[in-house]
């Protein structure tokens, strides 16, 4: 399989690029922020996503989805990133769908997700930095389980219809085994969600589980074997976040290069200054390398390759490095106007910072590579 988009994928890219640019450009995000919107995204837009089939992009055709892969999901996410469109696409249509896929929970939740009625959130982080540890307890109770603990950085957690929760049914915090994944419906007694607005004006919740009782059939996959669906969720989430980062970094770069071609100082276009040209060309190189890393991870995931996990960490770390550079250069080359709220480039820097933390930052993923390589 060549490492570029095939004709079908390119056609999808054209479709989604036009759609997002028309319906959810940066001004859409700005309007939601200015209105202090409490949902954090547009339910109407999510419905339109469903009408176009995107909500079921990773769901098999036999279950009413499009039956496409991570490359195609990434094509959508890149445009979401480029336009800074607030959307539950990554948590719902990508990460949650991958967690539920092939389990008894798929039949229950897929129809709502495909219809654009169900939004999913991922309750997996427990500290301010993404880690593999799971401390939240899930104790057997009656016909099911009782969940106790707290989760953080749960995007859409305050408004989601479905919350996917990683909890511990055995072992200790750092153990790989003994984790069980649960599908918890919203409004379950004992669950409270406190939404906080983040730097990028998106909303993420801190969830408190105080003896939240769920039925045994809330288990995703097998008890004590939640690492398998959790790993699926994480691989998809990390790859998806990388694709979105690619969009953020690419969008910021295009905006910056465009500005270099029209802004004059000392009576000449700043884009003609070699000092700035070299930095822009270096940035382009970093973004191109990141793009290749993302496509490689997506293709290997779609092939079910055993090398996918490493490629996913490379993609997440590399897109974080490249996009961080892109937004930093973006602000600097825009000069004073780049510091104003009125101008959009600052939004790119804020969004990049949030995505950098999501599912593990560059250090976390570089560390994973090192451990896997035995040093």
């Amino acid at each position, binding site marked *: 399989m*060549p*490492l*570029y988009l095939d004709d079908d994928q390119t056609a999808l890219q054209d479709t989604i690029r036009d759609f997002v640019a028309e319906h959810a450009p940066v001004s859409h995000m700005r309007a939601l922020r200015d209105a202090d919107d409490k949902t954090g995204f547009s339910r109407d837009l999510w419905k339109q996503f469903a009408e176009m089939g995107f909500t079921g992009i990773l769901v098999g055709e036999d279950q009413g989805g499009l039956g496409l892969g991570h490359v195609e999901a990434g094509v959508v996410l890149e445009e979401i990133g480029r336009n800074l469109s607030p959307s539950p696409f990554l948590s719902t249509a990508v990460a949650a769908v991958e967690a539920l896929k092939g389990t008894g929970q798929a039949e229950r939740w897929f129809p709502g997700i495909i219809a654009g009625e169900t939004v999913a959130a991922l309750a997996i982080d427990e500290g301010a930095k993404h880690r593999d540890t799971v401390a939240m307890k899930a104790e057997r109770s009656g016909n099911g389980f009782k969940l106790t603990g707290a989760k953080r950085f749960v995007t859409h957690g305050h408004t989601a219809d479905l919350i996917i929760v990683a909890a511990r049914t055995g072992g200790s915090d750092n153990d790989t085994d003994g984790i069980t994944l649960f599908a918890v419906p919203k409004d379950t007694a004992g669950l409270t969600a406190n939404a906080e607005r983040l730097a990028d004006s998106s909303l993420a919740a801190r969830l408190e589980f105080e003896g939240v009782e769920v039925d045994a059939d809330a288990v995703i996959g097998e008890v004590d074997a939640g690492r398998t669906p959790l790993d699926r969720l994480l691989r998809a989430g990390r790859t998806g976040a990388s694709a979105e980062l690619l969009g953020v970094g690419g969008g910021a770069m295009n905006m910056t*290069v465009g500005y*270099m*071609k029209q802004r004059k100082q000392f009576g000449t*276009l700043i*884009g*003609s200054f*070699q000092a700035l*040209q*070299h930095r*822009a*060309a*270096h940035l*382009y*190189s970093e973004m*191109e*390398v*990141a*793009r*290749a*890393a993302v*496509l*490689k991870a997506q293709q290997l995931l779609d092939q079910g390759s055993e090398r996918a996990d*490493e*490629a996913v960490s*490379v*993609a997440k*770390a*590399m897109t974080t*490095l490249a996009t961080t550079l892109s937004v930093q250069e973006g602000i600097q080359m825009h000069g004073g106007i780049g510091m104003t709220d009125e101008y959009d480039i600052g939004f790119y820097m804020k969004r990049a910072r949030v995505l950098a933390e999501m599912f593990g930052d*560059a*250090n976390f*993923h*570089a*560390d994973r*590579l*090192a*451990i896997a*390589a*035995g*040093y």
Partner: protein
Amino acid sequence: MTDLDTFRTETRAWLAENCPPEMRKPVRSEDDVCWGGRQFKPSSPAQKEWLDKMAAKGWTVPDWPKAYGGGGLSPAETKILREEMAAIKARNPLNSFGISMLGPALLKYGTEEQKLDHLTKIARGEIRWCQGYSEPNAGSDLAGLATSAEDKSDHYLVNGQKVWTSYADKADWIFCLVRTDKTSKQGGISFVLFDMASPGVSTKPILLISGNSPFCETFFDNVKVPKVNRVYEENKGWDVAKYLLGHEREMISGMGLASSGGNPLIDGAIATVGLGHDGRLADPLLRASIAMFEVRAKAFGAMSERFIDELKAGKAHPAQPSMMKYYGTELNKSRYELMMAAGGSDALEWDSERSRGGAIPRSWLRTKANSIEGGTSEIQLNIIAKRILELPA
């Protein structure tokens, strides 16, 4: 099974049968690399056997047409062959500027006679080529070259000097840029081929900071070059030169890729610094530097694959080789900085048997030329800025 699956199965079986075990181990030193040519002496029978077998199948140049000694493989088949060779860590059967630089230029610009004559010899490793581009006053400003070729009806009389001619003292033939018109800078250059054994050609090695001497100064004193050896039209050599430079940059960018067989950087660091009780490198800052480098190196590995795929499909931007050259060479320099840091005093040994004759420090010094030769990093950034980002002049 698709045709490609069948091809993969057959290729795997053929390589398993025909690639000698010694040719599946990493190259130990420059003497171990097969460059071919009239002066070539194989370092082992296995090296000769591997070259002969691959050349017989046309797989030294798998995607060239069969008529010119190639394998006639499609881009997809070529990729499979490359993957299957990598899977068993098979060495390149033949390293050659003829393959990576002159060949593509001849395929595009050469006459049928030139292709039949030169390409087949390149494919079999019979003739080793060198490149006559840079001159003492024409480095980054390559088109400022002065070596003259005077029209003598059936031949040119070439006079001048080239510099940084890689392996000129070991090469059989040279592909050379000469000035056929002094009134036009880029429009007065022609691209010619001639035998290094021609009367009037002499070479002198240049000793480098690495203590080695891959480069030479090359002098031409009334060298007769038959006109049939000119590639493409007179005064249009710059077109050929630019096309060839793209391929040269593609080749040099490959230096950013990790060599096959283990990871010398990681293995070296573990050997000198050691692992702590948690299984992690005992120098946490070195570990972090290596890990972050590996992110870029692995991502660049994906970029190289993408670049080649796009190139074969005609989808790559014509200036993309500049980006590959820039990134790959800068990456290779940081790899060797880390290799030196990881190796400590062991990596400083210059001549010892233990250090294989100072392989690491000499390579470290050699990499410093990566971002100068073939167009400096700054020239590549200029090209990216102007031709890809279309920034104003």
